[in-house]
């Protein structure tokens, strides 16, 4: 049953003339998880999200929710924050949130209550009767997120929700997304802030040139990458060659050196070689950050 509550993206493709925006893209966002969607500008993240929302028609592929292809009615239950932010600049903040809530099927009373509740949550309770255009950009961004959340969506699709937020707002928004995920809502968001994605997300999808080049937990992505070791061997000469097949020197920091191991290479051979030069003060496996993984994966895909 839990599988039914996944948002499944299956083989979607979209071309603009000769340009391929998305090609044969498949992944799923599971119920109760935060899915981070990363990729370079123009990689196809926004196109994918717009196809999920139905504001853009795919050339091929399907999007499923609750095990069946998304209908218009089901799409209305998705909370959406588009890349191009947009609300009515000359309308009171609470009023337009309530309006959007009603458009998504809430009653007038429910919508008003939800609008005020979210404004309160984002610290904007005192601005409820202000026109959107007089708010700071950061506060407008909070209202935009409130617009995606106001009707209690079943799925959240957020395009760059953290762009332009101060650290406090980032924490508030991260907390809200985590809370929605824990309530069983699949949450997908795109971001260029890879540290944040690594810290926040259960799974990450890396997209490049319209294709999913890596998808999984950060640990899984690491397993697919190459292992690295820091070695501190003060007795080794500056032009020391490690001489172990499949091991490459990446960088030097005084007497410390960072090596990368090809898949399947035993790190003990590296240690043995280091010990041969004299004492070894440090032998430390390095967990590559998502940023490093991202660069590796994109570099390979681009090559």
């Amino acid at each position, binding site marked *: 049953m839990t599988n039914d509550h996944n948002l499944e993206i299956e083989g979607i493709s979209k071309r603009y003339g000769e340009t391929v925006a998305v090609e044969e893209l498949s992944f799923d966002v599971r119920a109760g998880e935060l899915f981070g969607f990363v990729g370079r500008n123009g990689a196809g993240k926004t196109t994918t999200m*717009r196809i999920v929302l139905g504001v853009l028609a795919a050339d091929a592929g399907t999007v499923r929710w609750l095990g069946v292809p998304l209908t218009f009615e089901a799409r209305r239950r998705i909370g*959406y924050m*588009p890349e*191009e932010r*947009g609300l009515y*600049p000359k309308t009171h903040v609470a009023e337009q949130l309530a309006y959007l809530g009603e*458009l998504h099927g809430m*009653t*007038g*009373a429910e919508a008003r209550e939800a609008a005020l509740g979210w404004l309160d949550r984002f610290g904007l309770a005192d601005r409820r009767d202000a026109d959107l255009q007089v708010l700071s950009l950061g506060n407008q961004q909070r209202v935009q997120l409130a617009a995606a959340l106001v009707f209690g969506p079943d799925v959240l699709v957020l395009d760059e929700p953290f762009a332009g937020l101060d650290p406090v707002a980032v924490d508030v928004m991260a907390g809200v997304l985590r809370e929605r995920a824990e309530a069983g809502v699949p949450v997908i968001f795109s971001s260029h802030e890879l540290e944040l994605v690594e810290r926040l997300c259960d799974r990450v999808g890396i997209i490049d040139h319209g294709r999913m080049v890596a998808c999984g937990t950060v640990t899984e992505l690491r397993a697919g990458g190459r292992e690295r070791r820091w070695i501190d061997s003060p007795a080794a000469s500056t032009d020391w060659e490690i001489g172990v097949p499949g091991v490459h020197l990446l960088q030097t920091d005084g007497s410390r050196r960072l090596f990368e191991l090809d898949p399947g290479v035993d790190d003990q051979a590296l240690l043995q070689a280091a010990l041969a030069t004299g004492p070894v003060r440090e032998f430390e496996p390095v967990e590559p950050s998502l940023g490093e993984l991202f660069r590796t994966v994109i570099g390979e895909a681009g090559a």
Partner: protein
Amino acid sequence: MNARSWSLGGTRHLPTTFLVARREVRMRLRSRVFVGGTIVMTVLVVVGIVAASLLAGKTNPVRVGFSGGSQALERSFTATAAALGAKVTVSDIADVTAGEAQVAAGTLDVLVTGSSTAPTAVAKAAIASNVESALSLAAEAARLSDAGLSPAAVTSAMALVPVQLLQPPNPKDNENLFASLALGILLWIALGQYGNMVAQGVVEEKATRIMEILLATIQPNRLLAGKVIGIGLVGLLQLTIVGAAALVAVHVTNVAAIPALGVASILGDLFWFMLGFLFYATAYSAVASLVSRQEEVQSAVAPISIFQIAGYLLVYAALPNPTGPLATVCSLLPPFAPILMAVRMAATDVPFWQIGLAATLTLASIVGLTWLAGRVYSNAALRLGTRVRFMDAFRG
């Protein structure tokens, strides 16, 4: 169905088109443009009606003074003048010189001197011909009476020739034509304004990028329909306010004799206004959806505006002969029917089949336009940036 369930925005899930229309109405009613515009229009219309009634009432009677022997003519002159349709007042003037001074000063229009059988008239510039005729006839009667004819014989001798009209006079006379023309043109201008409001509203949602959020939850056709209905209702409300003020002014100033300002005629105008609004608002919304910036709206709607301007010019071209072929044919064509048929109906008795045909053709074209606009709007609404070509949007 308790009362609460009917309260707007209460506990019911409302259809999205209704929600969009309600938002349009709320936002527009709150805007200064609406409040200010309604006040200005109301004042202009009321002032116009009052001015018209004052001008209409200003056919002042001709003041005629009689001195000496001519004073015997006063009674027969007054009666004859009335028969000839001239409004006159008569007075006795004791002194001829003083009378001439009054004529020179403009406090008296005509001074009659001399005897009743050979009177002389003194006037500043000219005398209205019917006043002059009345005076001549009165003197003629005095001469016949002087010659010994009995009063009855004099009366029969002086009897006016009865005129029998084969065609009864058209109650839709000039004043009426003017009033209907003014109304038609006012409605036409209002129609253009509300059409433009729809165009601006469509582009506003594209320019502010809220379109993507809206279209993720509401079908484009419903969004468009809600917008057109909402703005149409606002327009109708504004016209109703102005129209009610106009009817009150008409009643108070007593120019109600003008049929173009009667309830039936105004309801007819509102009917044509609604058809015209639906026609043009739908067309405007389709072309407006092709652009993404407010500055581009005017150039985008220009091809549609041309029809509106043409309709305006056709009124002047067709009105001198409201039953002629130009007026008849153009008043049947949907882009012009809303104004031309409204004006023709006020100007003359239009055959019922023509009214029915014009309304049917206009309604049918509104249905077609709605389909076309919905298609173009759906395809163009999310294409931001450069102007979308019409055929590209149509093909999708």
